[in-house]
């Protein structure tokens, strides 16, 4: 009985502390993405605690080579699989980003298949992080690159994302809502670099309801390269270093925006 009371008190103290911590943070902190919001994990509805870090510093890039494991993603006629290609993209991109002094975390290191939520957990546990999920499409003009962020809702983001039962905590399945502006900015910066490097790529990023982005409580974008329909993987391999250099440049530019707290 005593143990049970103690656990209830601990839980209540945690909730109160979390709410107080969030209220103490500047109002603009969560929407601008400078400090990641606390989130509720959907299955257990538990509060997610995040590591402490300087509020305005962009320190971590979480790279997500999409798919993996049994899910190979898009497959070309010549056995080219999206899961393989994006893993090699991520490894190369990691080197370019680490050269800027950023810490880079990959959501998978080999042919593993973490769930959407597992990948989100990795980035949501970081402070001062951005998230980039890498894809290769089945369609689209070969050699082009499109960058996506989630679309903006018309309703105030906090209304949509907040949890009425626990004010100050963010619903896990709407975790991205507070970061839409910064995600869009990051997408713009990357898309500009891609348009300069890959002819036929759009100059403006697109908005799409990419499932992986929805549960990420940090600036988050999806990059999709066209496509697995090439006869062999050489053209995609040739794109990899150019893509890595372009994304790294865009992240460097975004770092200034992020650290200045500009929406």
């Amino acid at each position, binding site marked *: 009985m005593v143990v049970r009371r103690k656990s209830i008190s601990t839980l209540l103290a945690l909730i109160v502390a979390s709410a107080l911590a969030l209220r103490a943070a500047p109002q603009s902190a969560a929407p601008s993405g400078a400090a990641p919001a606390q989130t509720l994990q959907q299955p257990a509805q538990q509060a997610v605690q995040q590591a402490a870090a300087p509020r305005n510093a962009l320190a971590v890039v979480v790279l997500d080579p*999409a*798919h993996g494991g049994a*899910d190979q*993603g*898009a*497959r070309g006629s010549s056995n080219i699989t*999206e899961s393989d290609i994006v893993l090699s993209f991520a490894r190369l991109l990691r080197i370019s980003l680490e050269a800027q002094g950023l810490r880079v975390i990959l959501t998978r290191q080999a042919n593993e298949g973490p769930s*959407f939520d597992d990948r989100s957990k990795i980035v949501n546990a970081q402070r001062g992080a951005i998230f980039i999920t890498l*894809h*290769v*499409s*089945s*369609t*689209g*003009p070969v050699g082009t690159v*499109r960058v*996506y962020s*989630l*679309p*903006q*809702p*018309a*309703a105030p983001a906090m*209304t*949509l994302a907040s949890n009425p039962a626990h004010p100050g905590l963010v619903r896990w*399945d*709407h975790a991205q809502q507070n970061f839409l502006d910064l995600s869009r900015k990051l997408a713009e910066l990357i898309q500009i670099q891609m348009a300069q490097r890959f002819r036929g790529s*759009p100059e*403006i990023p*697109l*908005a*799409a*309801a*990419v*499932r*992986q982005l*929805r549960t990420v409580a940090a600036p988050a974008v*999806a990059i*999709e390269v*066209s*496509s697995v329909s090439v006869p062999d993987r050489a053209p995609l391999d040739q794109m990899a270093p150019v893509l890595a250099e372009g994304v790294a440049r865009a992240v460097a530019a975004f770092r200034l925006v992020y650290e200045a707290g500009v929406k």
Partner: protein
Amino acid sequence: MSRALKTTIVILAVLVVLGLITLPSLRRALQRISGSSRTEEQARREVMQIPISTPTDVKVNAQMYWLSETSPTSLEATSIELPLSADPVERSKQLLLALIANPPAPERRTLPPDATLLAFYIQPDGTAIADFSDALQQETPSGILSEQMVVDSIAQTLGANVNAIRQLKILIHGQEAEILAGHLDLSGLFPVPSAAQAATPASQAPTTPTTTDTGQTKSGGSAPTSPVPAKKVPN
């Protein structure tokens, strides 16, 4: 010339003649085999997707959104003559059947040919619920781009031809699906643009759907459509 050589030449000649005789029938058999898959697909559609006709059908020029002839990354409105019902539900079904079955060219197709529309409803608030067979999920090419084209072509075709629809929910075999073909989130509602909005180029950036704090979307934006979190639709 030795006797053995003569025999060999005769046997070879006989084989060549036999080959020439059987060649046309072999060719016919091959054509039959290659054509059989299309026939099966047509037969399945004939059973599953019986053309809908209602007493209020009137032939109209329907605006259908398939892939653009010139740019495979965007949609293009194509006007085709279709008998369409005055009833919004029947009209929507007729449009979606045509969207699957009647693309002007295979390369302009947005929905997989094997996809079938299992059910279609419109709720009083303008939410359309389109329930497709598993083929929509299994046969849509994997990729953000191709999956977005599927949703956009459905939403824009409905928006351009049916006034009663404001938003769209896509179910797969009667169930809410998390994703379409690996990427696109199907858990939310997709805004359906009005006829005027649907006429704008698909490559333009989307306007935002209106969302209440309960996740219900009230009015649509222009293409491309993107979903917003929604209440779970009762099955």
